[in-house]
């Protein structure tokens, strides 16, 4: 079919671009490296400066950009599907704020149980899952997705208020650590952590794959989806669970990253012109990775001239693009 062909072309070019960004990212930067350096560092990392730069600084950061972009986009897609609302994203369920809450509490209380880095990550995920669980309870009780969305938004603000109070009551140093974390940064991740993040993200993607049929039907609304044999309860549970895992992991490692989870699923839908979530899932993964990869690459290229925080750039690059996409498609979407 014609459409399948154009899908393939789009995905293939995204994939090729992804590879190009990946290689250029490893090659270019403040430190001059040759292609030999890059390949030698990848195949046989050692203690030399060039090798450390590629292996410890560039590689984990670009991989994290790809993984975070993919994970947040998939989480956003699931949330937009669940609430049948294009304004939904991973942050609407209070999942991101759940992570923030526990991280804030931990940083300001100064208690360490497992060693600082492990604590941070563990709590980030725990917070996301905790909020996810609360939302799940609501999801089981509430009939309407709009009410669920409302509860999620309110819980986010509620937690934001608690964090503000904790911040006001805590000492300067603890505050500073939280503020640093809250900046959102891809470079905190080390190469040793990447496999774990990748595995968890893959788990989320695989779980999503097993719901494609349900996701497709959900497009028609929960009522019709149910008449098509979809268990609404199961979709809600799984979507929130997966979005919780994905967002919690990324947030714990990289801090809150805004905009990607909201924008990419919308752009993907407009680009692929389909509601088939089998296609949308892979497209979100590729486009999300590519978007965050390009964002981070731009930050790196521009860093000698101007320091742009990641969360500023995602919006800076994203908003004009998404606006243009929406304007271009306004007749189709009706």
């Amino acid at each position: 079919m014609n459409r399948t062909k154009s899908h393939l072309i789009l995905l293939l070019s995204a994939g090729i671009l992804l590879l190009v960004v990946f290689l250029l990212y490893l090659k270019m930067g403040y430190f001059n490296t040759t292609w030999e350096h890059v390949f030698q560092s990848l195949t046989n990392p050692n203690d030399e400066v060039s090798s450390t730069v590629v292996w410890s600084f560039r590689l984990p950061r670009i991989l994290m950009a790809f993984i975070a972009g993919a994970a947040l986009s998939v989480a956003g897609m699931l949330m937009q599907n669940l609430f049948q609302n294009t304004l939904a994203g991973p942050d609407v369920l209070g999942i991101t704020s759940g992570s923030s809450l526990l991280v804030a509490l931990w940083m300001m209380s100064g208690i360490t149980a497992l060693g600082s880095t492990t604590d941070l990550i563990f709590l980030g995920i725990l917070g996301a899952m905790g909020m996810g669980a609360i939302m799940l309870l609501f999801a089981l009780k509430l009939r309407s997705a709009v009410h669920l969305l409302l509860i999620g938004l309110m819980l986010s603000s509620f937690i934001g208020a608690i964090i503000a109070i904790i911040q006001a009551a805590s000492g300067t140093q603890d505050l500073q650590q939280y503020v640093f974390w809250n900046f959102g940064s891809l470079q905190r991740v080390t190469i040793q952590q990447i496999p774990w993040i990748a595995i968890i993200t893959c788990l989320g993607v695989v779980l999503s794959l097993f719901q494609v049929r349900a996701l497709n039907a959900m497009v028609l609304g929960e009522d019709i989806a149910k008449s098509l044999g979809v268990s609404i309860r199961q979709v809600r549970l799984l979507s929130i669970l997966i979005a919780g895992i994905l967002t919690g992991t990324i947030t714990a490692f990289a801090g809150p990253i805004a905009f990607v989870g909201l924008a990419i699923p919308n752009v993907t839908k407009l680009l692929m012109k389909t509601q088939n979530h089998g296609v949308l899932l892979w497209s979100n993964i590729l486009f999300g990775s590519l978007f965050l990869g390009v964002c981070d690459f731009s930050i790196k290229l521009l860093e000698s001239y101007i320091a742009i925080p990641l969360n500023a750039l995602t919006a800076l690059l994203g908003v004009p693009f998404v606006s243009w996409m929406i304007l271009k498609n306004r007749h189709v979407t009706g």
Partner: protein
Amino acid sequence: MRKNSIKFLFLGFFFVFLGCNTPEKNGVKATNGKSRYSQWLSYVKTTDGIKLFIKDPDKKLPTRIIWCTTNPKYIKASHADEVLDIRNIKIATNAAAHVGMLVALDARDNIGAVSMGKYLYDPTLKQRFDKGRLLELGGTSIPFESLSKQHINIWVSAGMEPLDQSNEERFKAIGIQWIPNYDWREEHPLGKAEWILFFGAITNRFDEAVAQFNAICKRYHAYDALPKGNQCMKILVGNFAGDFWYTPLQQSFQARFFSQVDFCTFSMNNKGTGSMAVGAERIYQEAESCELWLNPGFPSKQAILSAFPKAIQLRPFNQGSIFCYSHDLNKFWEQSALKPDIVLRDLIRIKQGNTTKSMLYFYREVK
């Protein structure tokens, strides 16, 4: 450079000597004050009190000339200048450095409001705060009502709060004089410390303030004259916030100290008074030639790692040493402005490896 400063030292002493002993009889007419290091504050001592001249670094406001006196009626009758009655003043301030200077002058009783109780270092003030005798200004808005309840009559401001017309009128309405304090815009360490004279003037402790400042200058120059070891020792300064590492620029207050001790940072050649944002790769490379890392902003290596795990790749983290003042930030913010000599001494001792706990006042090794 050192020779120059010694010259300054003598000149300075000479001036203060004059200033202290022969109050200008006709200073009444003075339209300009003098200062030794400060760019934005100058002053004249007269028989009827101290005249302060406060310049706006941004040149938006005209220079404020404030006559601090215990005899306001006489001056008001004979001069057109702005008069500050210093017989019974209560100060509100939201800067820790201001609190530190007032404490040093033993003018705690003149403090009526501070920014936040949790940022206080001075134990006496802390106690007063806990007993509810100090007002907390808090965050964003100016609590006019509580200010007037506490009988506060001076708002010493770092110029950060919005001073639009409506706020100005409100200050006036409740009888508060708004006085700017630009110590944080000073570039010379001693220029910042010189603002103790401002607080001396408004709390009627000018002579005491002059004596303290002279002592500070003397100690500062004495430390400065000590041999400091090797020329241009490369160090790493700052830490990451998000994707970027922030390090002070050449003319910033911090960098002045570093150049005084012959520490070199890669930002040494970048002009400016703020800080500079640098990417991770560059920092890693710069760190390769450094053994010392100053001001990471965290009191322990563990805290550094949890904010930035790749710090482990930086050479000073593993093979060198790290020093910071952040084990007691309140102390640093409250006192460092007035103790540039001690900051300098700490840095010299760090450079010389003389770093046992008892040898350092603000700094401590990060472990």
